């Protein structure tokens, strides 16, 4: 029996397949306008790649449109992305107690106990500050790709201070520094640091207990990652998988735990 999970975010969608408690495949795509279509597409491509039929798989959904996937008969059940990130990370490394997930349009800090159960969480999803969208806006203003933005932290000598919380005003600040001919590296590093600070204060609401891991698209930004480690005083545990698939993996694990005995 195979178990699958889909996770649709604001920018990307993932699917993971499990067999005998092992990941047999995963896939990550840009989203389509409709979350149900995104999930179907990403899972469909993965199934095709592995060469199994959908009726051989018990699928759990998470992320946007997770309920609709159940209504449409595509997924058996749905679980919140908060629990899925907790469960996925814990399954990969049982020492994890805190998961910081930064996606395109939300950021969350999830706390789990020694059994992997959710004990507390906090989420920011009302404005772009502290999400991938914030980085995207600033990278665009700087004329950089997201990857380049992340790397700039390591080339900067004197990061600038980005104080605005609102991403629109932060963009104004970035442009202001550019007009005054500050080094691009220093501005970019300032952006990464400012992002890390937002997350830090979000994390403090529920507390940060070791071990800690960083998931979601922004985990791929090396600059933010390093700044966040510095400010939190922890070293993030690398889960050994693409940090964007942890939510979908969690959903697949929930499916396996619930229907694995069938």
């Amino acid at each position: 029996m195979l178990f699958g999970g889909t996770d649709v975010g604001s920018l990307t969608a993932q699917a993971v397949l499990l067999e005998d408690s092992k990941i047999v495949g995963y896939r990550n795509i840009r989203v389509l306008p409709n979350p149900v279509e995104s999930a179907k597409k990403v899972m469909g491509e993965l199934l095709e790649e592995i060469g199994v039929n959908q009726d051989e798989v018990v699928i759990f959904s998470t992320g946007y449109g997770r309920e609709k996937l159940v209504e449409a008969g595509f997924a058996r059940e749905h679980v919140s992305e908060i629990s899925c990130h907790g469960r996925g990370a814990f399954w990969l490394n049982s020492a994890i107690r805190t998961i910081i997930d930064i996606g395109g349009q939300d950021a969350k800090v999830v706390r789990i106990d020694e059994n992997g159960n959710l004990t507390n969480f906090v989420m920011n999803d009302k404005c772009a500050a502290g999400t991938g969208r914030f980085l995207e806006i600033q990278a665009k203003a700087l004329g950089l790709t997201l990857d380049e933005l992340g790397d700039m932290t390591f080339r900067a000598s004197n990061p600038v201070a980005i104080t605005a919380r609102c991403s629109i005003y932060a963009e104004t600040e970035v442009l202001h520094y550019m007009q005054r001919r500050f080094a691009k590296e220093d501005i970019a590093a300032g952006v990464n640091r400012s992002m890390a600070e937002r997350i830090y204060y979000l994390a403090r609401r529920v507390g940060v207990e070791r071990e800690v891991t960083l998931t979601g698209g922004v985990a791929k930004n090396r600059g933010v990652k390093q700044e966040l480690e510095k400010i939190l005083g922890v070293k993030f545990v690398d889960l050994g998988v693409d940090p964007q698939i942890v939510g979908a993996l969690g959903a697949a694990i929930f499916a396996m735990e619930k229907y694995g005995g069938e």
Partner: protein
Amino acid sequence: MTSLPGLVKRSYDLIKTIERLENYTPMEVEGLYRIVGKDLGQSAKALLDERHDGAGLHFMRVIARHIAEAVEAKEDGKKVILIPFNFPPELIHAFENAVPLTTEVISTIGVTTLEGQGEPYWDYAMSLGIPDYVCSANTIELGSALMSVETLELAPDIIISGAPGSCDANSKIHEFVAEYLDIPELTIDKTGSGKRDYELYRKLFLNMVKELEEFVGEDIDEDKIIEVMERANECTELYWELHELKKHSPCPVPNMFTLFTYGTRFTMWGRDEAISMFEKLVDVAEKRLKRGEYPAEKEIARSLWVYTGYYIDLYDLWIWMENNGITYLTDGLNSFFPAQFEIETKEDALEAIISSAWNYPMTRQMGADNMGIRWFEDLTHVGKELNANCAIYCGHHSCKQTQSVFRIFRDEANKIGIPVLRLDGDAWNRRITPVSVLQEMILDFVQNVVTKRRRRRRR
């Protein structure tokens, strides 16, 4: 980052340094701006600007005294009483064994003098779950006070809450801090602006004085409180002298004197330090009047700031405006209408203090039976006296009361021909709207609305 000390502890160290500035040459001071970092540099540049002729430094000394007294009182076993800005400090000055510490003033000092402004303390409060829309004036200092549980800050011994009936956020966050730190809180209540409301307010105030006397372990001495009130009368006289001077055009009273005035009122009223501060302000303004000094070629706008000012950059806002011919005549916080009192007994003194508290800015307007109308009437009264030609509302986003009745203010002001600018930003938190955006909006308003109106009127 977490081990950063609180506002009071940090400011205390810093202010001791500022006191030494007087001995430096202008060039050395200029050099200092560059070393101290941008945030303090901007404030130091503004405070020590030539036009203030030493008044800025004098003001820093007054505030330094306010903070130092709290720090020293703690060491001497005296009580530190945390008060909101809308509570008359002269009552506390009448005690031998207690000193006041004023919430919003400490927040403002933090924002203006510390590198990183008030942000670490605001963030600390956020991390406890305080919503981000709660007034930063309170959140910054109280966020800092909360750090006293980790011994990073001076802990107040008791809190006075003076804002119920005029500000929920102020009252509520003071309550939060009292609960969180497990210290007592004394509360008064303003139910409206009528006679019966005053009677209740008076009773509650007198009860509070009794409780305070019990807490401090000392009955206020009659001679001492009379002395304090006599000094308060002197302050009042000087306040109105300065007010008179503002009627001249171009205005000989520099923009920042408004800030110095209420900064002193909220901390040192009834003390020699306040008298000498006001003497200095009047003296500097008189000299400027005689010499006809004004920083710009022409005074284009005589602006009445109907609520507070912005404290996120003293140089690029207060000084910058003046350099562009925009006079900051006064603001809502400065409109506390001090009165002279005849004081012969302790009872007289208490009655006078109660009446001052009742007429405090915000308490008087936002605690009225109709906030919008009282706000408009009070501020336009001041505006007319000072011949203001425009009004500017700082649009402090977390002030739910002024925000809710701004429409009333604007409609009424338009009826009598006063153009009103509504800005949008946080007076104590630069993260909301950057200074450059505020500058643009002010300039745009002055050039396109105020001066055009003036031209039209001349024709």
